[in-house]
């Protein structure tokens, strides 16, 4: 049988789930069980549903997800480590008519890039930030991140993160929500179908507030890194539920869509 015959729908079948056109059909470089693929897909679906694919500029950051431009067929530029919100500010100020977003991990955004994200948020830049928090530096081999949980062992806190030495994990969605220029800040999780559906709504809102000119849109996605957590993908999902969500509560921390937006 030919491939197209195998793929053709039978009379009693209907297409319920399609791959967004903006997602590039290629082999993934992400590890088994990694949630970047899901996060990429949510962004792809949202851009298509909003009809803004052709007007979108992506700012890639440093880490595993630097290669987001290999998976999303949109105009893209690479930012130095942590600087994506500043680069996005420059893109957006240059082209205020475009949809501009950054896609950053927790080492990039919450450690080296803290100043850039805080000030872009505080200025109310009309950009969207998709923040993937997996509590570890993934690409460099599993070192401690600012979001690493207390007691979590990494290659640079082999005895487990200790509050007295390394301080407490940073809760970004709450911090961002406290800044004046922010129109939307939420935290969602990619550990289960139910949470992924909620995450998509949050991603959509984070883009909607940009498109409506209301202010800065921020969505934090709790994600698994089975490779650096030294566990399988199922256990990684369980860890998100049992260890991450209790410390990083899911929810919407700021939403001005009912109001006038920020100045």
């Amino acid at each position: 049988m030919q491939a197209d015959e195998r793929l053709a729908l039978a009379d009693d079948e209907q297409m319920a789930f399609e791959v967004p056109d903006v997602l590039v059909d290629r082999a993934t470089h992400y590890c088994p069980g990694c949630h970047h693929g899901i996060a990429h897909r949510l962004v792809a679906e949202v851009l298509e549903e909003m009809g803004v694919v052709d007007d979108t500029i992506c700012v890639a950051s440093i880490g595993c997800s630097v290669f987001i431009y290999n998976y999303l067929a949109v105009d893209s530029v690479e930012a130095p480590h942590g600087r994506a919100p500043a680069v996005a500010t420059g893109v957006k100020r240059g082209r205020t008519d475009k949809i501009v977003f950054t896609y950053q991990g927790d080492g990039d955004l919450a450690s080296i890039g803290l100043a850039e994200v805080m000030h872009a948020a505080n200025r109310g830049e009309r950009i969207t930030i998709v923040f993937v928090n997996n509590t570890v530096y993934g690409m460099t081999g599993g070192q401690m991140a600012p979001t690493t949980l207390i007691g979590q062992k990494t290659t640079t806190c082999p005895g487990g993160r200790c509050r007295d030495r390394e301080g407490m994990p940073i809760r970004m969605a709450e911090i961002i929500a406290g800044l004046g220029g922010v129109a939307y800040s939420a935290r969602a999780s990619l550990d289960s179908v139910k949470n992924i559906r909620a995450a998509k709504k949050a991603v959509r809102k984070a883009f909607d507030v940009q498109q409506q000119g209301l202010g800065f849109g921020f969505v934090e996605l709790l994600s698994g890194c089975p490779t650096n957590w030294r566990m399988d993908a199922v256990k990684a999902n369980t860890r998100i539920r049992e260890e991450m969500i209790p410390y990083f509560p899911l929810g919407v921390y700021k939403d001005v869509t009912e109001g006038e937006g920020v100045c």
Partner: protein
Amino acid sequence: MPHNTTDTGTPERIFIKGNEAIAHGALAAGCRCYFGYPITPQNDIPEMMSYALPDAGGEFVQAESEVASANMLLGAAAAGIRALTSSSSPGISLMQEAISYMAGSELPGVIVNMNRGGPGLGDIGPSQGDYFQSVKGGGHGDYKLLVLAPATCQECYDMMVQAFDLAFKYRNPVMVLGDAIVGQMKEPVTPWKPAAVAGTEAADWRLEGAKGRKPRLLKSLFLEDGALAGQNRHLQAKYAAMQAEARAESFLTDDAELIVVAYGSIGRIAKSAIRKLRAQGHKVGLVRPQTLFPFPGPLLRGLAEQGKRFLTIEHNCGQMVEDVRLSIRGIVDSAFYGHMPGEMPGSDDFLAPILDAMGGK
């Protein structure tokens, strides 16, 4: 900017600081975004851009740091916008990361450095201590900036127009390297409007959304086998081609026995010293490089082949002199006089070093 021509059609001259001339020149060149962070002695530039750019339909952002300013410049450049940042030495150090990324990603932008004393916090007075940082790359990796060095307020204006054109011509960051002298002094300047703002509209690389075409990607990461080597070869060929842009002012070099090589404000002060010595009959001339990269090495080499001797004068402890010596290697050496950063030079300070280099003649 109401400074074009008078009713009679003659160019209107305005009396402004070098820093203001930088801002006027940038606006004339079609600059539409400015990103910066306060630092002395260049604050007139962001202050003027903060009110002039919105009037010109552009965007002004006071960034949270020079790190952020330079990355905002990178972003605006990626969108094909004529954009500017300015700072002074410690702030320029903070920008080196983004400048390296811009060079690696081939993004055009203009960076103004009003050089102050260093190292460290140094002082807020003039210095040429940033020659190496400006001309030899400055950040990580093998790359070059085009570097223009104004000596007058008029050149501050003119070189801003050139800087934007060169940035887009070569898809490369351009630095305009002044100092606290040329930035803070006032002179009459004749503003002019370039005939056309080249390069911006037709750019086939800028990001604007991939409507009706394949997505574009601007990056400096090349992991595939051979890709980075290929990119480096491409960049080096581009830097070699930039040699065509080398410019220098030559002053009384034809009959000179000694050529003083000095750039920027120091070149101008050296010119005053040379006038005094010429009045006393000393055959001394000046080459003032207006581009520091590309360096006008062939000009100097030609003068060396005529048997002339050389003295390099800088407001630092010896940086450009290395490029002078490389330019004339195998023929003659260059003497060096470094006026110490932290001390303001006058033309009389250069008389004895020039006479020494002439062998007491």
